């Protein structure tokens, strides 16, 4: 039964991929090889679409793979499979933390964890910066400094950064504005 298989494969992915949506990519690639559900090229297209549509990338990829394998029910089953381990694990951890919220050790631990996590997140954000505002990989490949910058993108980035600071609009408004300017300029 394809739905059981799909659920089980994505349950495994959700259980073993630690570190967010992109951590699931190797699992999806292995799934494609093992089950012969889709080719590497199809997977690459699914990832590209998952990055270009609203919603967390990890969920988009699970939905897309599920749909490719077994249509709309497949997309639902795959997504439910992938999120089930998260829901269980997080509820256990959240329940534990709720109980020990006022424990001196737990409090002290989080005083250390928080700044560390800011560092970890900053690293991920620098990764986003060097692939969406400046283009480090392209520059490394060609060695041409013009490949590193696109003045129009830099201007979008800087203006939205300062506009966002000054006007308290919803982040989605800035994201929409970025998309609009991108289309108008034909980036």
């Amino acid at each position: 039964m394809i739905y059981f298989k799909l659920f089980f494969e994505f349950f495994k992915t959700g259980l073993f991929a630690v570190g967010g949506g992109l951590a699931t990519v190797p699992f999806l690639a292995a799934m494609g090889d093992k089950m012969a559900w889709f080719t590497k090229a199809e997977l690459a297209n699914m990832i590209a679409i998952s990055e270009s549509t609203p919603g967390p990338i990890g969920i988009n990829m699970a939905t897309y793979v599920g749909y490719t394998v077994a249509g709309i029910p497949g997309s639902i089953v795959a997504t439910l499979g992938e999120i089930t381990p998260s829901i269980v694990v997080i509820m256990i951890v959240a329940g534990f933390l709720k109980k020990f919220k006022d424990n001196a050790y737990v409090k002290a631990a989080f005083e250390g964890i928080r700044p560390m996590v800011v560092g970890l997140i900053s690293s991920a954000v620098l990764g986003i910066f060097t692939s969406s505002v400046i283009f480090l990989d392209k520059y490394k490949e060609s060695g041409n400094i013009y490949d590193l910058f696109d003045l129009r993108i830099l201007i979008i980035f800087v203006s939205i950064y300062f506009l966002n600071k000054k006007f308290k609009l919803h982040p989605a408004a800035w994201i929409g504005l970025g998309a609009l300017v991108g289309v108008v300029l034909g980036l």
Partner: protein
Amino acid sequence: MICLELFIKFFKIGITTFGGGYAMLPILEREIIDKKNWATKEEILDYYAVSQCTPGIIAVNVATFVGYNKAGILGGIFATLGVVCPSILIITLIAAFIQNFASYAIVKSAIRGLSAAVCAVVIASVIKMGKSAVKDLFGIILMLCGFVLAYFTKISVIIPVLFATILGIIRGRGFRK
């Protein structure tokens, strides 16, 4: 009732997030911290910390966390279903009708502009979060360690988080003596 509210809120968050779990941060800040007071900046950072070290997609883990703390098991389930629903709807439509969606020039242009915007609002959020979490030299050092380890090495994030847990406890105990 609160479950429905969680579902709608996270549906909205899911549909306005482009990218991974970090891209969700400014939206969470706006919707969950500023508008709803469902969590503080510190709590959101704690959720991210746990979400990075536990299995699964970060955005889903954070949604489950917020939902559970707000309204128990059902809350966690509804918040999570809310955050994944837009993906299921949109991806299914695209997969059914426009398989070459990502190769359209107009989509590429929009995504390039949008990604720069996402990056700008994410950076602003991280700076705000950082200001509330990094309060002293101890914090600055840990933050820098986290950054260097994550950016320049391939070690699992679990190791720096464990390390920070131990240092946090040692320091906390030391202060009380």
